[in-house]
């Protein structure tokens, strides 16, 4: 994968790549992609893709309100909070 492709992919993945990362991750990613190409040797014409091995249908449940006691605990675990709000770092 060339540097341009790598940088585009990193931007989509929301990861910053430094100089060292570009070389190291670039090599690791390219090596795996080349390996993925191996699958092209297989004829898969006409086959359905498997998304889940055993779950075949969508499952629905009744649309009813159920109590959950988790909300306060979840807010309590915020790194920083004000009342019942999450405080995020300063964005200037």
């Amino acid at each position, binding site marked *: 994968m060339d540097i341009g492709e790598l940088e585009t992919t990193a931007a989509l993945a929301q*990861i910053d790549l430094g100089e060292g990362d570009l070389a190291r991750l670039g090599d*690791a*990613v390219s090596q*795996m992609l080349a390996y*993925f190409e191996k699958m092209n040797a*297989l004829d898969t014409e006409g086959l359905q893709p498997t998304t*889940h091995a*055993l779950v075949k249908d969508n499952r629905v449940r009744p649309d009813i309100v159920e109590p959950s006691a988790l909300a306060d605990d979840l807010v309590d675990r*915020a790194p920083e909070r004000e009342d019942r709000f999450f405080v995020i770092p300063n*964005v200037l």
Partner: protein
Amino acid sequence: MSDAPSPWKSFQAKKEAYLAYARPWEKKVGSFLTFRPEAPSSAGSGPSGARPLEGLPFGVKDNIAVRDFPLTCGSKMLADLVSPYDATVVARAKAAGASVIGKTNLDEFGMGSSTENSALGKTSNPWDQSRVAGGSSGGSAAAVAAGLVPFAFGTDTGGSVRQPAGFCGVYGFKPTYGVLSRYGLTAYASSLETPGILAKDLGLVKTVFDAVKGRDPHDQTSLDPESQPVRPVKTIAVLADLADLDPGVKAVYEQTLVHLKALGYTLVPVTLPTLEYAVPAYYTIATAEASANLARFNGIRYGHRPVYAENPEHLVRQSRTAGFGNEVKTRIMLGTYVLRSGFQDQFYTKAQKVRTLISNDLQKVFDQADLLLTPTFPVPAFVHGDKTMTEFQQKLADKFTVTANLAGVPALSFPAGLAGGLPVGMQFTAPAFCEARLFEAAAAFATRVPVADCPGTSLDWSK
């Protein structure tokens, strides 16, 4: 099969003696990221008849939620997160009478085969501390092998329960996809992963499985086990073309065939033509799902965050760049790439079709035999920082384990013997919902090759 091993029932009463045994051992092995054996039991209450795990302590891989314990996933990203709730498998094990005493180390977010990708601790193999415990559930396997807990939960996305179990000489069980709820697991590759169980006692693996299995309203992909006709295992498929095995693993494999024949099983040579495509298909699907699942870690609500940022996007990028380790970044990048518009058909859809082929291939094997036998991993535990086993080679070596995840079927790694003083695991794979066959054949095998105790392991504290 035996019930839960009795020495552990005295755990709460003999805690002083246990601690004197466990503390120095754990210092050498490093199986836990959080270890709280001194805390009072967190088991649920209920009628004792419904409590098959009464009094037993257990360990939980640190990507599975346990109320009031950290949930780090072995990542700097989540180093400070404490879970407000229990995963379903944990809640059910507690209700059955067991109590969590620690969270075990792992490769960051379950990505690796050595536990060396943990950002938060080093785990060594109890059999030889210069070697790795395997991964990604390396801490769970090491804790069980060292006799620090009678059982532990891991997660298995491509072999992450079975491979470390093989490296550490214990049982590692991956059930049929969906039979154990994923509620409370930190998602990595949702269509492949499942909780799994590690123990040195096969009967206990089954007892724990029975206590925690079944459909869960919190996981819409969870399933009740389908009842299968019970008939004795008679035929075991073996691969006619096994290559690239370490000599020690090969020797144990050949010995295993001798034992299985002596037990009266008929060995049926088969081929799995798609086996060499299982690893590329697996990593395409796993990294694609990982890139989507790990998109939630953005430093906004929880997780590693910078002190300030220039704009919201910068905040997210800083959080992820500093919070994730190298292997996680590699997999997110790969997954992002294979899902990019223009590449999806070439990689992701192709891999899902290969997945169909692999399932069909496996079905053909099960038309001819009750079980499939393979080694769990082509090599025994390697040394820490081994340069001959690069990240890429570790991935190639997943070929025997990933097949079960792609097809959603159950598999069990069982201790099959030693090679050069190191344990070697073999693996049975069964059709969906046929877990009973795995337990039956592994129990028969253990009558000929009993599970070896790791040197230094002892239950003397319980006396």
